[in-house]
């Protein structure tokens, strides 16, 4: 298969398959969560579950002081690479074009050289969290194959994307093809691994806040 054929395949049938698995997967996972239901609380409500839930959804974005002091490295590098990923995925013009294709609307992006700098910082942060996970004895004990898989599947698109933008390492059509393929891998694994936190965390936060709100305590 030539570079060009490979690129056309990843942009064509492979992306169709990945999209289907991603969308179907997210819907299935969400339904699984909601249909499982929660244990009904038969006590009299003493506050608003909704208000408590909504408050936690936003409030838990910031870490509480104790956690921040205890795990400052994890929290700070976590923030760095999450913001970096947001900038790369949603503010880089070639990526915005993909969303425009899917949603029908686009939005302005950042200058590409700024995204390039952000990408380098993101890669460094991602490498730092991996090294931290390998060196910290507790984390090392707790870590399983899935944790490393999820790290790899997230980091690979960032690195291959950087290489594709700078056109180093192989012929440009192959570089772009490999990058898109790595994103498709991420898409396929997204609903079925820890990566699903992207859409489940809002539900989890709401539930936690709702429990407290229902009981009439601050969430």
């Amino acid at each position: 298969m030539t570079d060009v054929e490979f690129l056309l395949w990843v942009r064509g049938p492979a992306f169709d398959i990945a999209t289907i698995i991603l969308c179907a997967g997210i819907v299935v996972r969400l339904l699984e969560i909601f249909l499982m239901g929660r244990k009904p609380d038969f006590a009299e409500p003493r506050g608003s579950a909704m208000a408590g839930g909504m408050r936690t959804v936003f409030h838990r974005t910031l870490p509480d002081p104790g956690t921040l002091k205890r795990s400052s490295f994890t929290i700070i590098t976590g923030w760095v690479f999450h913001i970096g990923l947001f900038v790369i995925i949603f503010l880089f013009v070639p990526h915005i074009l993909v969303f425009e294709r899917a949603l029908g609307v686009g939005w302005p992006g950042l200058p590409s050289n700024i995204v390039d700098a952000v990408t380098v910082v993101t890669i460094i942060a991602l490498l730092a969290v991996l090294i931290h996970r390998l060196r910290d004895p507790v984390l090392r004990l707790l870590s399983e194959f899935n944790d490393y898989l999820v790290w790899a599947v997230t980091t690979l698109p960032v690195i291959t994307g950087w290489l594709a933008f700078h056109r180093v390492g192989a012929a440009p059509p192959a570089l772009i093809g490999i990058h898109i393929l790595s994103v498709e891998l991420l898409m396929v694994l997204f609903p079925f691994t820890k990566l699903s936190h992207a859409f489940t965390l809002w539900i989890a936060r709401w539930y936690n806040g709702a429990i407290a709100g229902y009981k009439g305590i601050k969430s």
Partner: protein
Amino acid sequence: MKKDQTLGEALRSRGISRRSFLKFCATTASMMALPPSMIPVIAETLEKMRRPSVIWLSFQECTGCTESITRSNSATIEDLIFNVISLDYHHTLQAASGEAAEAARKAAMEENWGKYLVVVDGSIPTGNPGFSTIAGISNVDMLAETVKGAAAIVAVGTCASFGGIPKADPNPTGAVSVSDLVTDKPIINVPGCPPIPVVITGVLVQFLTFGLPELDSLSRPKAFYGQSIHDRCYRRPFYDKGLFAESFDDEGAKKGWCLYKLGCKGPTTYNACATAKWNDGTSFPIEAGHPCLGCSEPDFWDGGGFYKSISTPTGDIGRNAVYAAGAGLLAGAAIGGVLHARKQAAVRKHQRATIDDLGEES
């Protein structure tokens, strides 16, 4: 013109001085992007060369490639035909000659067996041999017969190199490229729709002077196809800074910003357009404000649309997502229902959650 004359002798016997010949060598070297130090080498090689026989086969094509080469101003087609090569067969240019043209082709093949050059433009239909014939002979047969004694084949244009327009979906004629049919002779692909005139003549002259040039993985001469349009584009600084034209004739387009968003295939296209340009260096599509079509690459007609940028997938994302969500609803409802029932059963039996349950990933 006597066939056993060297090129130098042939030129002088036509009244073309050696000074004129040196001028031809200098401008040819320039056109082939060779350094001036190569001019004496070219002069010496061409001087002693015997005029090679060239058989030009035109198959399923639009004649754009022949038109392109006749527009070449360096080594004009007349220069090539009369001076450098012996163009023994070209059915479009010889159309008026009828049977005599076919006889000339056979004679040229016999006399120069093993040494003649075959130039092909147009794709070859394999669906039904009758789709494209010359003098009653199908393209497939004529190609097979003619390449038997050829020294090399030059596939001019994207149709001959990769299949081109006829091969585009749904390929009603079963069109294939020269490389798909010929596997035992050296092939040089000179793609483009059409190729730049000076590239066609440059490759021919380069081959005739120095033999097979260095080829890339798609058998294209690296001298002309070694750089992508993107890497030589004068609008590259705008790409690097993220300044793109959003539509044709908007402010960005007027300022000459990058055409990536309008579907430019420059990043994945290899050709000499950005440096050699068209119409003797006047301009090229991007400079004229139109995104590169990628016309020197295989399957550029089926590459997902000329105005869809290369970062976008070619399928219908929206439709796929909706269908997938629909399927997901059905599957999710079923699975969710089963899980819910299982949970209700566990609650009824007062089963307790264990540490293993908590350890499950999904």
